[in-house]
């Protein structure tokens, strides 16, 4: 346990998670360096800088009192919904789909922030909902409205991936809040029925094509299936130990699309092989285990739901992205946390981490709850 000569603020940090996470980010920077053809300044440097900036932000979030979180939950949610509407309006005027706001110093993607936002507002909702009400419709109705507004707006953009991520986060919080199991089973069953209908009516052509191509990538090896095929070639050709740092031909010769964003895992696996892949999976495993442990040890209902929801939000990113690059899911634009180049996803993930760290701090200071 903490040694006397290390300040408590430092020794209290969850180093068991933080150190592997930093290693993962550093590893990500190395992969981005290679993806840029050995140029550090193209993507890798900004990747590291962003991580440092957002790490500081996470530390700040971690020190915020629970009371602030509770108070800010609804207003933050409201602001984010307003921003989503704003984005939609600007996009409508620009004559195309737009997902971000240009804030001069950075581009802000409100739908990204909505992922932790929905978890926060639902955690707050279920913490204030009387315990007795959790088993009837009153526990579902408001939550459905809270989810429906942002999810609908994001799907309208159209951004299926983010829409699903928001929905997934919300469903996890509902699930953890103790809503009756049969509701989830029922919803799952009806989803099975509705999915084919939605496939033909709600999805855009390009999304439908992606799904079809996912089912049979070889049907269109030069079109939409190209992404999946090339990604599988990159991962498969890496072998056990990879082709070596800087030797990935798939990424360097541009056969692999989006080699620094959505398909960064393929870029990595080509050069580092299964060894690198296992390392990435291991780090994610450590992060999720920490997140669930924190939520189990959390002092109250709000923080429990908050921590588990945030953990699962990160998990959803990783799960969908890795399934996609390995040909187990259709191509949806979801980046891999801490490895893909991109500010918005880095910010979202660090908000999630910061929030979980805050929960961890609350459980240290507050007396243990009921158990």
């Amino acid at each position, binding site marked *: 346990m903490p040694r006397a000569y290390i300040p408590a603020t430092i020794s209290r940090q969850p180093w068991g998670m933080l150190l592997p996470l930093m290693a993962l980010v550093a590893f990500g920077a190395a992969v981005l360096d290679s993806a840029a053809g050995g140029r550090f300044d193209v993507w890798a440097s900004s990747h590291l800088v962003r991580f440092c900036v957002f790490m500081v932000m996470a530390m700040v979030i971690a020190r915020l009192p629970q009371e602030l979180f509770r108070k800010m939950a609804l207003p933050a949610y409201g602001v984010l919904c307003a921003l989503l509407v704003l984005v939609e309006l600007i996009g409508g005027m620009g004559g195309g789909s737009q997902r971000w706001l240009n804030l001069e110093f950075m581009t802000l993607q409100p739908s990204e922030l909505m992922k932790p936002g929905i978890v926060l507002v639902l955690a707050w909702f279920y913490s204030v909902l009387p315990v007795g009400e959790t088993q009837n419709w009153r526990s579902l109705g408001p939550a459905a409205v809270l989810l429906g507004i942002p999810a609908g707006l994001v799907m309208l953009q159209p951004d299926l991936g983010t829409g699903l991520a928001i929905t997934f986060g919300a469903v996890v919080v509902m699930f953890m809040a*103790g809503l009756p199991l049969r509701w989830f089973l029922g919803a799952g069953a009806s989803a099975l029925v509705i999915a084919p209908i939605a496939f033909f009516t709600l999805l855009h052509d390009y999304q439908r094509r992606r799904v079809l191509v996912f089912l049979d990538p070889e049907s269109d090896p030069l079109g939409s299936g190209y992404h999946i095929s*090339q990604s599988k070639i990159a991962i498969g050709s890496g072998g056990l130990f990879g082709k070596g740092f800087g030797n990935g031909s798939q990424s360097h010769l541009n*056969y692999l699309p989006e080699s620094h964003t959505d398909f960064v895992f393929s870029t990595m696996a080509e050069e580092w092989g299964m060894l690198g892949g296992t390392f990435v999976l291991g780090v994610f495993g450590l992060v*999720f285990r920490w997140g669930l442990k924190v939520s189990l040890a959390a002092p109250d209902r709000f923080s429990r739901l908050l921590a588990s929801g945030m953990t699962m939000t990160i998990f959803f990113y990783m*799960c969908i992205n890795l399934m996609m690059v390995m040909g187990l899911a259709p191509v949806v634009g979801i980046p891999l946390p801490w490895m893909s180049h991109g500010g918005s996803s880095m910010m979202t993930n660090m908000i999630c981490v910061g929030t979980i760290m805050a929960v961890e701090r609350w459980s240290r200071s507050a007396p243990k709850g009921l158990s």
Partner: protein
Amino acid sequence: MGKLPVTSAVLTNRFERRTFVLGALQGGVGLMLATRLGYLAVAQNEKYQAASESNRVNLTLIPPRRGWVLDRFGKALASNRADFRVDIIPDRVADRDKTMDTLAGLLSLPPDKVRDIRDKLDKARGFQPVEVAASLDWERYASVSVRLPELPGVIPQQGFSRFYPTGAAVGHLVGYVGAASAEDYEKERNPLLVTPGFKIGKDGLEKHFETRLRGVPGARRVEATASGRIVRDLGTREDVPGKPIQLTINAGLQDYAARRVGLESGSVVVMDCETGDILAMASMPSFDPNSFSDGIGRIEWKMLSEDDHVPLRNKVLRGLYPPGSTVKPMIAMSFLEAGLDPSASVGCGGGLRVGNRVFHCWNRRGHGTVDMAKAIYQSCDVYFYHFAQKIGMDTIATMARRLGMGQEFPMPYPGQSYGTVPDPAWKKKKYDKEWAVYDTVNATIGQGYMLSNPLQQAVMTSRIASGREVMPRLLLDRNAAQPKSMGFRQDHLDYIHAAMSEVVNGRGTAGRAKLPVDVLMAGKTGTAQVVGLNIGNGKGGLWKHRDHGHFIAFAPFDKPKYACAVVIEHGGGSGAAYPIARDVMTYIFDQAKAMEVLEGFEKQWGGNVQQRMAARYEVFAAKYGASAPKPVPDDAELTERVEQGRKPAEAPATVQTDAAAPRPEPEQAPVTTPSPAPTPAATPTTTGGQ
């Protein structure tokens, strides 16, 4: 669950259980991802490594240099020229019009050429490269190369292109090459066939010896990006050039013979009568295989297909003509072998009465007393009418076949026309009619059913000259055994040779065919009627109604070495043929003297073959420049149409009912006016025969 009152403790308990479910879900997904990773990276590693390697490494075939076609002295009839060229792969072109506009500007292509390329682009299947320009200079090649990024699908490259130094002179002899057609590719499934710059033999020797001439392609391995940018060279394997073929042809003589035909439509065959080596085999007018090999443009096609001189037909092998009086030495030989005394004579009074009919000699005034020698050098018809009646058609027909008439020779060209040697059995079988007197009369003067091609006439001449059973040979074989003897008596041969020498060097029908060198040439004239006297006299009038002119010759007459046959379609008589034979033979013995004569002629004709063809192209381009229809068939169709255009003249389908009027031999009627150059106006193409 609903029955118990839900308390905070229950929810916490439920939370813990459900957290465990989430953990299990995460673990499960993690395990699945790890398994999938292992499956891809380890179990299927080999497959994906191969795929990645085939992505990374781009294999570009380098078309092999084609084997040369050499003449007997090693001079090139077809060679390769290093050049810069630009091709288009239609499939990869983004904006066809824009690309063509840019290229036309960069390469300064004339509008008719641009239109030809557009035609080809429209027709080409995706994988077929279309040639935009070849034989470019460095500046223009470089100007395209630097603009490549904005010209997807355009491929500039350094390579080799086929080059025929003497152009049209070897068009029919060697053939031409061209981009492989879709049919070729279907047949062979060889990626080389669709490699830009690769040409396949389309006709003649180029087609017949394709496998031998082709060679083995080289390959260049490069590392290329997905968009095709080459990152680095991984190595190049040199091509293995095709094997050359050496012909018996004498390139200089071939070119001379082709040029000497001039404005006429005709063929010249020169053979070594001791070995059968073909020294020259020219059919003119012809096409320029150099420009054919780049694909045929609209104007060029119009020019060739509308020419009544049928430049697309190889007349040496596919032209059929009544041989006229050139068969007389052969018939005399059959008389000798049948035991006729050469001094036996008849009196020629201008005609021969058989029963109540009179068959005329070409010389209505009569030749007086005629023995065999005089019958040959004066070409007296009555002598042959008379003795043919006595000796019989079967003897003559047998000799004709022995000497090569009506025979097909093993030549590396498809579809020879081998004509007819008529006899009573043949007529019975073909027309179910009895042989009549006039049939014999016709046959003895090489008219009627008798049809032959110029090569057969050359073989006949060779066999009479050397007394050996020579077979025409096109591939040089220095170790070939000498052909065996025909079994003729030497004194018979000497007698015929002397009579044929008299034709040229004495009192004969072709006195002006005497060689201007110290070598005596022997020969025989022939004039074959094309239309009856009721339509024309055969000397003037419509070009296609004029008589065919023949001349067969060999030299030196006492020690025969070279044999020659000249056929001039509608030349108006043998007077059109023997000056050509004389000059061609002169070339063998004294090139300078022969060239001097030729250059004199070419000044009158408006330049040499290339210059005249270029001038005609200009005329056509000016006349039809913008409006030339689009008849340029695609490759497969073209081959077919070329084939049709060169279909042999049909043998007369109608039965002959009377004797042909023998045409006067031309000593007194020299032809000085060359037949007019064919005009662009469409005239029905003529067939060679009667």
